[in-house]
């Protein structure tokens, strides 16, 4: 019999992701995109039967807006799994969500620099 010291280390995750989702189908990526911002609606209490992951999301999101990607990152869960849990909360009305801010208009830096230089030549 192997001595306890020889025991190999198990390093894989303990609770499998499909158990966390309960084997349910995963929501579409369009629904809650990576950069959608979510936060908890005010004055809500987590349901007593909430899983540890839902409680963790609850704690994370009560501080203000976080992106879906951040929530997944904090929980160490695949984005799809976090998205499903967030969608559940959303359907239960616990979640406020905001679309990702629109991308900024890109300004051509070269033009701005030319203007700046022009001004400097003129007045500097």
């Amino acid at each position, binding site marked *: *019999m*192997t001595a*306890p010291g*020889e*025991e*190999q*280390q*198990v*390093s*894989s*995750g*303990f*609770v*499998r*992701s*499909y*158990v*966390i*989702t309960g*084997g349910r*189908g*995963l929501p*579409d*990526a369009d629904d809650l995109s*990576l*950069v959608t*911002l979510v*936060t908890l609606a005010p004055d809500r209490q987590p349901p007593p039967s909430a899983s*540890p992951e839902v409680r*963790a999301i609850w*704690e*994370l999101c009560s*501080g*203000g*807006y*976080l*992106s879906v*990607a*951040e929530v*997944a*990152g*904090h*929980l*160490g*869960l*695949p*984005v*799809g*799994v*976090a998205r499903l849990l967030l969608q559940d909360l959303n359907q239960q009305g616990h979640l406020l969500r905001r679309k*990702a*801010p629109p*991308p*900024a208009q*890109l*300004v051509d*830096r070269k033009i701005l*620099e030319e203007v700046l*230089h022009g001004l400097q030549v003129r007045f*500097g």
Partner: protein
Amino acid sequence: MTFPQGPVTWALVVVALVAVGAVLRARATNVKLRRHHAELRQERDALLHQRDELHVVHNGLLQRQSTELAEVRKDAEEETKAVLKAAVRTLQGLADEQQVVIEKAQRKYGDDPGILADLMAMDHANSQFGRRAQGIAVLCGGWLGRRETVASVFDVARSAQGRIRHFDRVRVNGQVNFSVVSRAVEPVAVVLAELLANATNYSAPGTPVEINIQAVPTGVCLIVDDAGLGMGQEEKDRAAALLSPQAAISVSSLGIPPQFGFAVSGMLAARYGFRVSVDSVSPYGGVRAVVLIPDELLTTEAPPAAPAEAPETALPQTPQVQPVRQPEQWQAPAPAPTPLFPPAQQPDTATQPLAQITTTAGGLPKRRRKSPVSAVPSAEPEPVRSNEETASRLGAFQRGTRSGRDTTTTEGTEFQ
């Protein structure tokens, strides 16, 4: 004396003589026979004695044979177990390795529901494979593998749930504020998985299987109820024997296909000191299996929070996400890091989903200083002016402001 007279007398004499002769002969024969008889008897006794001796020898040989056979069997069993154990050890390691790879892939490609679903299916198959390998390892006297950290009883139940085929039929109810000590985490999870596998295999498809977690005075009970047909007395006896093993279980006695759920459970329970019983009836009519984890294997230590090592893999698309900037930040093109605003204070500016994520000691998100977010993601253009030129211009600016202040001072006196 007169001679006998007449033929009758002579006849009698002859008869008498013949009779005497016959008697004598008979006597001689008798003596011979007796002698022969005695000889035979002697011979028989000798043979009997020999037989007894042979009997003893035979018995001795039989005994020797059976002990030798048992020894050979034991040796063979041990050798088989040793070989199996070594082989399975490799498989266990590979299953664990594969699990880690799949997990990483899940985090990496988690944004795509199709890919993630496929990865989950692989994960599921691999978990079952890992459990099988662990079962064989235990039967061969090997070990399961050790976890570093404690795990909550609820998570142990869910981990067990993930190791069986029909995990979606299992419901876990009840959460207690206890964790299982690290060395018992895997054993309890494997035993529970075996019980769940039995429960789902021996009940109708689609019927639920429940795990109820209950704190009892001596520890925590994990109660598995199924809605199957239950077990007969014979099966119960067999299960009870396997669950409280008196001796090492022979691998070959488990049948084909091998049914090693109870055997594995019994060996693990005995080795780690928890109890498993399957002798009661569930409220749904099936089997009620109970795992009692004693206080010695429990702790109130909270399990560690989820590892937050994911971000760089969890957010593979970060380069594609258009960075967003605040207008005033544009003026800071220098490589000096621009602080990000914590979301709790200024949620409006929490528009940077790409921040490196860490947590505070309390597990709350902590945003790190981040390299400047620029609306112009293209490579920094070569500076138009040389550093010396910039320096001289800055110097000129400084001189200008100084002279400006001087002017103010002089003007100030004029106003006075």
